[in-house]
């Protein structure tokens, strides 16, 4: 039997799917409805300081007919008073013992204020606290949200104010709008956080109306940077997740967020070390019902692979995250085109010709063009296979036998030992020895 249950920093839930702190987790009505449909947990929409939203607050990025490939927002934290939220949180938790109810907090940077809100939050009976250090707009100008997340010292100080009074697990939610995500993560660790959540939204402007020159979203003629989320941000989230997950100085459980739309996405986050995943945009697009396929799809996938618990695969791809200097320079692949499958669109040709290494030949045959790779010139970059619209038509084939292997780090070390400089001539000699000609 497959068991989807997880434990993220001491917060347990029957499956890894949590609502992210955002509009879908705004109220008791919504969170309870989500639980009824199967969600394993929720991170309550951030509560705290008095705020007032502008009306028009979202912008969607559509891509080739797909709606909301990315979603941008200039929304603030909960626009309902703390008391109302705390009451609803307590009611929700009472009804749903087995689900994770985590409360996201953001208040002004005063020790007493934090102490007070943390204590009141714990009184609701909730399972954990998430500190929103990510909101990139509106709150950051007031010294909160990303303004904290971007400065490791603030991040540490405020986290300490929380952990010194909290009796329940504390997650620190990081902003991706930093140049090194490990620094705020380490600060959170140093301050005693129990886990990390990432990512919050990315600074962005979604687009411009070409008729009116207005930004989207447009608030009475004005616009500004908002937070970017949705399927488009997943690759960035995966990267930042991996960076925190492999950092031995952090070594904390992680709740992964950013562009999770289905069970496949969720598995990728888990393979890079996430304990739970959080979802916002996909729910904003389709509703809570998407969790049905998430649970069933993940269960079916695990069953087909003989995996019974997510612990067996958590972080399984992390050992593969490595530095360029350790990649084998002699692991040689070239492109091969399956002539039976080719539909003669010639996209591989023009991509290689104009943007890669000019090693696909185009020869007219029976009224169409035959595309053929000149293998000796192919550098195996894979661009042609990426542009090819036909499944398995261009495959990247490995041609070395694995007997020779040399990484950049090994090569520079070898040169150093032999008293050789890293010059173009010396590099060409190495390449020539292994039958590699770059022109």
């Amino acid at each position, binding site marked *: 039997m497959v068991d989807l249950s997880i434990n993220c920093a001491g917060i347990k839930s029957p499956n890894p799917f949590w609502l992210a702190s955002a509009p879908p987790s705004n109220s008791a009505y919504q969170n309870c409805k989500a639980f009824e449909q199967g969600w394993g947990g929720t991170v309550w929409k951030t509560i705290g300081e008095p705020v007032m939203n502008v009306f028009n607050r979202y912008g969607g990025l559509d891509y080739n*007919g*797909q709606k909301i490939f990315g979603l941008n927002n200039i929304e603030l934290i909960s626009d309902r008073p703390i008391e109302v939220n705390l009451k609803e949180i307590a009611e929700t938790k009472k009804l749903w013992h087995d689900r994770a109810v985590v409360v996201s907090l953001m208040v002004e940077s005063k020790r007493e204020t934090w102490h007070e809100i943390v204590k009141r939050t714990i009184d609701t009976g909730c399972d954990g606290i998430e500190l929103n250090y990510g909101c990139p707009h509106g709150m950051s100008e007031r010294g909160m949200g990303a303004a904290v997340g971007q400065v490791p010292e603030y991040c540490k100080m405020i986290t300490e104010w929380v952990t010194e009074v909290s009796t329940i697990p504390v997650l620190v939610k990081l902003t991706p709008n930093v140049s090194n995500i490990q620094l705020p993560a380490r600060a959170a660790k140093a301050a005693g956080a129990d886990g990390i959540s990432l990512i919050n939204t990315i600074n962005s402007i979604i687009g411009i109306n070409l008729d009116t020159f207005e930004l989207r979203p447009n608030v009475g003629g004005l616009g500004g940077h908002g937070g970017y989320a949705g399927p488009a941000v997943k690759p960035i989230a995966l990267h930042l997740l991996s960076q925190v997950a492999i950092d031995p100085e952090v070594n904390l459980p992680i709740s992964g967020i950013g562009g999770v739309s*289905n*069970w*496949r996405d969720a598995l990728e986050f888990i393979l890079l070390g996430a304990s739970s995943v959080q979802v916002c945009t996909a729910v904003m697009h*389709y*509703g809570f*019902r*998407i969790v*049905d*396929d998430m649970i*069933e*799809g993940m269960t*079916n*996938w695990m069953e087909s692979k003989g995996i019974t618990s997510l612990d067996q695969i958590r972080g399984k791809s992390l050992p593969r995250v490595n530095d360029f200097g350790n990649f084998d320079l002699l692991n040689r692949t070239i492109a091969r085109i399956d002539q039976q499958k080719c539909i003669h669109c010639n996209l591989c040709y023009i991509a290689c010709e104009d943007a890669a290494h000019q090693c696909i030949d185009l020869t007219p045959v029976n009224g169409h063009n035959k595309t053929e790779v000149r293998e000796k010139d192919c550098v195996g970059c894979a661009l042609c296979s990426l542009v090819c619209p*036909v*499944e398995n038509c261009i495959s990247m084939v490995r041609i070395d036998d694995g007997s020779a292997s040399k990484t950049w780090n090994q090569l520079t070390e070898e040169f150093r030992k032999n008293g050789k400089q890293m010059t173009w001539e010396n590099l060409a000699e190495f390449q020539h020895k292994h039958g590699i000609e770059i022109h």
Partner: protein
Amino acid sequence: MKNIASKLPSEQYEKNFSDLHPPFTQNSAVAEANRCLYCYDSPCMKACPTHIDISTFIKKISTGNLLGSAKTIYESNWVPLTCAKACPVDVLCEGACVYNAKGEKAIEIGRLQRYAIENYFDKGMPALFHKAPKNGKSVGIVGSGPAGLACSAELALLGYEVTIYEANKIPGGLNTWGIAPYKMRREDSLKEVELVKSFGVDLKTEVMIGKTVKVDDLLKKHDAIFLGVGLGESPQLSISGEELSGVVGALDFIEKVKTENWENVHVGKKVAVIGAGNTSIDAATEAKRLGAEQVFIIYRRSDVEMSAYEFEYELAKKDGIVFHFLTSPKRIIGNSFVEGIECLKMKLGEPDIHGRRKPVPILRSEFTIPVDMIIKAIGQETKSSFLSSIPKLTLDDEGCVIVDRTTFQTANPKIFAGGDCINGGKEVVNAAYDGKHAAHGIDKFLSKK
């Protein structure tokens, strides 16, 4: 027959009866699934007579959860492979797809359903549902068509002991013996029969209830009975010459075609099909695809009144079938073999009580079409003699069994019925709905006892 059409090379038969709508490849299925908007409370779902949660099963194709996709489909429909291939989707699910309103091509729901279900069979039918523990009650199902199969599957999962009695040697009803081979082959129907059997349903073939086993004995043996007996042959034309060699009933003819021994099914060089319903179109296109040189459809009314679906009409025209509208057969000409059919031209008169304009003959308009074969396809008779022999059953004017439309219970409380024998001949998908819901009617009835 006087002039038998010459046989075709076997590759030609295979080509003529190959898939009208070829299957999706994985890429194209996922691309199409991603085009679906995943509507909430979707119109397509409402338009499907079995109310399959279409947006959900399509979403699951897009994420690669194909087993889950099949499960969503089976939750509503026990013969989804047949439905995917044979449903008139233009007037059902796909006709209701919101893309029509946007002026864009509807999602190909039928083909996506086929993709999910074929994958399920390819994977060896892994169990999707838990069977309730046996409740000690038994139900007898008469007929293994879609109505009987759906009722059996649902009851078996509810914990009933289920026995199907099927008169034919090969089960499946018209799914096996009726649906045009270019829509689906017999083996598809038999796969669906196998799935139902895998739930522990006992299938007894070559048992004709009313003959081999008496209805009374059946009523004694089981706690409840479900009738899914379908309909019978096309009625007599009641004109002279009907006994000549070369005059056949549509159902008989189509059944022969469905054996898939193409070269053993004789068709005339020139064939006339009488009637213009969907079965007539099937008979005509099948005769043509078997090698008939000319096929005519003869119908008393005009194209407006004909009951065949628009896409079936288009298919027939594409196959080169010639339509004689406002034409009524008067007598069949020939000595021992059919040589021709004498017809009378008609015109449309005043509308009758149903608003349908009645055809009236034009005097002295007789003309003769030389043909070698005549296929009678003016509807299907109900199994009224069998049905009226069953105690306390009530039938309507058309000979259909009268049931309560939510429980599918007949006037005899122990007997339930569904499919063609209650609706006078609709689609597979309607029979699938009836059978499933009758199972719940039976369950309600027997749980009360």
